[in-house]
């Protein structure tokens, strides 16, 4: 599912520090994660979980330290970043947006139809973004993960706004992704994913597989 070379996928974070404004959020963060592993980021609000994810996604610059994604091949492994915001346009229909992302990644728009079905948006295809509930918007954001298989998933509270069924879907997607050799790093409150490691960002302590 994730593509060749994913089994040798490694993330090495060394001595990472992040700042917001003049404040240091965390420093001295070092860890290593391999393909097939899931890392849950824990910590109170404002501790820097989102900032860490944005640094890993290449959106925000680290204050200090290095981040290196490696695979057997020469190219950097592809990443998906799902933030708090769902990137849903109010005037476009759900199907249009799913198909846009398929085309954006150079995929067949038919992939979008499959992904819509998978995230449980069948029957909502023609609803414009402004007519979708918060949970449905989040499901539409998940479509991005499915139309383009990429080995690294960076998810910021992926289950926020989702109902029980939606949470089960995310758990299922994450389990499938790791089974395929992919890597998931997710900021999360409440129930986590089975068999994942935990990083408490407020203490920088990294647990073994729980």
């Amino acid at each position, binding site marked *: 599912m994730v593509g060749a070379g994913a089994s040798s996928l490694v993330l090495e974070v060394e001595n990472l520090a992040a*700042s*917001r*404004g*003049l*404040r240091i959020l965390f420093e001295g963060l070092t860890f290593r994660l391999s393909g097939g592993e899931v890392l849950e980021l824990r910590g109170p609000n404002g501790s820097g979980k989102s900032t860490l994810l944005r640094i890993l996604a290449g959106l925000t610059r680290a*204050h*200090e330290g290095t981040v290196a994604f490696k695979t057997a091949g020469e190219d950097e492994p592809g990443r998906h970043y799902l933030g708090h915001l769902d990137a849903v346009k109010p005037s476009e229909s759900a199907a249009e947006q799913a198909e846009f992302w398929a085309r954006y990644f150079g995929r067949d728009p038919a992939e979008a139809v499959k992904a819509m079905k998978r995230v449980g948006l069948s029957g909502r295809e023609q609803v414009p973004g402004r007519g979708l509930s918060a949970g449905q918007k989040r499901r539409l954001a998940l479509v991005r993960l499915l139309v383009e298989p990429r080995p690294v998933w960076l998810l910021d509270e992926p289950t926020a706004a989702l109902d029980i069924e939606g949470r089960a879907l995310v758990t299922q997607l994450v389990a499938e992704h790791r089974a395929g050799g992919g890597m998931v790093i997710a900021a999360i409150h409440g129930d986590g994913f089975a068999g994942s490691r935990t990083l408490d960002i407020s203490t920088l302590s990294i647990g073994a597989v729980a």
Partner: protein
Amino acid sequence: MAVMSIFANPHRFMAVSKWFAWGFTALGSVVILIGVYFGLFVVPPDAVQGDSARIMFVHVPAMWLCLFAYAFMVGASLISIVWRHALADVAAKSAAPIGAGVTALGLITGSIWGYPTWGTWWEWGDARLVSVLVLFFIYLGYMAIWQAMETPQKAARAAAILCLAGAVNLPIIHFSVEWFATLHQVSMKASDEFKYPMYVVALGYLALFGGLTLLNMRAEIMNTRAEMLAQRRQAAAG
């Protein structure tokens, strides 16, 4: 990549800059006074314009310095974008209000000189004056960006981008204004004996610019450091 180390540990910069800041400020003030004295009392009146040409001693060096100050900011912005050194950001930010002030001085003295010469307070046919007016607006935009951004790092980046965009466009703006002004070109010509006091004043302006910029930088660094310590204290208390 210790981008903010200048705020965390400013002691060396502060120790060295203190003497240069006050030294340049004093030196600049004295040299300007000498230049202005020669301009007002030693040099004979201009053959054509008479005594009114003496405002050139203030005006022309201001027109030079407003370009120099902008070039200085462009250099600092380049360093900021390539190496992300916070001191370069502080330098560019600190130079801006002084550059803008000198630009305003150049515009006002140009206008005052223009009245007896052209019979109008503002002459759109003078390409240099009009280009400097546009430069003044670029200075204003640059300072507005510093005010408007939520974090100092973002403000520094955005301001540096605007500064470089302005630098790339300034020659084109000047060309277009010159093209526009060919309708009625007027130009200021100075005789040689007029030039020497001008050079003296220009050197004085330069030293004063250096001194005031350093003073501004020191204030900026101390402000940021104070804010940083206050936040840290709050974080430790909470």
